[in-house]
């Protein structure tokens, strides 16, 4: 497979049933189009990992793709609950979902440990909370020099990391900027990675606060303009807050959710068709 390929081919070749998948993005640069493609290709038994699962994980869970979720905060930011996530946890619909719950600091530490090829990371965290009691991947560890007790968490090493970035060059070097969250760590911690980008350019100009992933750390790069929608890509798009708000009503009901997925995701073959289907303008450069 070529490093630069279609999102269809990247998901077909790199995402398997039962895989542990980390699709990261901290409000900014969330890889929604890639999530839709996973639903479209009918992946099952996925272990989804993310600090802040939001709408796209709600869709994956509701569509029955996931049997486990590892996370630290699952909500629709500024709107409220994730209805499909709640229905899965509270009512086991469409089937039971196992959850492994951490804090943001713990998840960030786990990704960083994975990126550094360490089996665990340490932090000051969790002590006294209910998480220590209910999550088995939290342990105490003693400092060999001071005797102080700290918290250890195991590294995250996803099978596949999937992120969205602003651009890549033709060699496959990826550049993202603005708030870049934990995406670099997720890619470096993963065995394989897919990056959707707003555009592929001849030459990447350095910009302030940019994170660059060299081509040899990325498995596949796919040009998917506005592939983060309704999230955004700084310099290319703004967050579609109305779309996030509207999701609450769509997702509240199993029937309306299923109809939405069938019409807009399963009923389309790619991101361009999805955009037309939900009434969004198709970017000029598609």
């Amino acid at each position, binding site marked *: 497979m070529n490093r630069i390929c279609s999102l269809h081919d990247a998901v077909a070749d790199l995402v398997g049933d039962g895989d542990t998948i980390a699709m990261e993005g901290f409000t900014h640069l969330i890889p929604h189009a890639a999530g839709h493609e996973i639903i479209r290709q009918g992946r099952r038994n996925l272990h989804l990992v993310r600090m802040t699962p939001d709408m796209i994980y709600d869709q994956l869970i509701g569509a029955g793709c996931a049997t486990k979720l590892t996370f630290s905060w699952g909500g629709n930011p500024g709107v409220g609950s994730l209805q499909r996530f709640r229905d899965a946890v509270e009512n086991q619909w469409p089937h039971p979902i196992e959850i492994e719950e951490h804090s943001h*600091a713990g998840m*960030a530490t786990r990704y960083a440990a994975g990126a550094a090829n360490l089996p665990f990371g340490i932090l000051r965290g969790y002590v006294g909370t209910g998480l220590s009691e209910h999550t088995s991947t939290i342990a105490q560890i003693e400092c060999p020099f001071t005797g102080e007790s700290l918290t250890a968490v195991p590294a995250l090493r996803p099978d596949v990391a999937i992120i969205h970035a602003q651009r890549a060059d033709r060699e496959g070097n990826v550049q993202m900027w603005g708030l870049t969250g934990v995406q670099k760590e997720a890619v470096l911690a993963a065995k394989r990675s897919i990056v959707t980008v707003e555009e592929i350019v001849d030459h990447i100009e350095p910009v302030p606060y940019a994170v660059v992933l060299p081509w040899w750390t990325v498995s596949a790069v796919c040009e998917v303009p506005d592939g983060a929608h309704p999230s955004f890509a700084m310099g290319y798009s703004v967050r579609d807050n109305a779309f996030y708000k509207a999701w609450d009503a769509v997702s509240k009901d199993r029937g309306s959710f299923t109809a939405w997925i069938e019409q807009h995701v399963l009923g389309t073959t790619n991101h361009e068709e999805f955009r037309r289907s939900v009434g969004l303008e198709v970017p000029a450069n598609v």
Partner: protein
Amino acid sequence: MSDASYTTDELMIVNAARQLGALAAAGRPVCFVGIGLPSTAANLARRLYSPAPVLVYESGCIGSKPTRLPLSIGDGELGETADAVVSVPEIFAYWLQAGRIDVGFLGGAQLDKYANINSTVIGDYEHPSTRLPGAGGAPEIAASAGAVMVIMRQSKRAFVERCDFRSSVGYGDGPGDRERFGLQGGGPKWVITDLGVLEPDSVTCELTMVALHPGITREQACASTGWSLQFADDVRTTAPPSAEELDVLRILQAA
């Protein structure tokens, strides 16, 4: 308050901002800010007080000076106006855990009398009646920030004797627990509600009503609290939001 010329959100935001103003007078506080009421309060304080609080967002923005209120923690404006933008692992390790944050903000679905907070589940963890978003950044904000300010509407349902789940630790089961847990931050110092302000008692650590908003009675406060609410010896009445405070807040929110 039905005829008040301000909303309960405005009341809480103004009182939270005033507390930041008091801290600012003693040296510019560094605030670890979430989106919503805390972000609004911190941004209001930035406009009202000098030196202005320094805003740090968990998305990695340090020293953001947004000209309009951010809609989300990942708002582009936060990065564009920041002194520095760092990764999420770094913001938690080098900045929050390192003790560089003076004030953290928390809210949640339940708050108990020792200022522990639940934002995880209502009911049993394995079989919850309501699954909430989860702890997010709260456990380590509660552990490591120099002080924590809680902003929550006061009600019997939310202000409970004991949280169903402890997402973040205030004073645990009472005096000495923070030290036993090895928590380095100072813990919750102020709870700003729509009825007034609670602070932990210096001996018992129990949240105690230290101020009531104009027109609020002790009976209303007790009726909105799920534990046997204690009052400070000298309960203040907060000043109503001033015209200036409301003007600046509304301009901020309209921008």
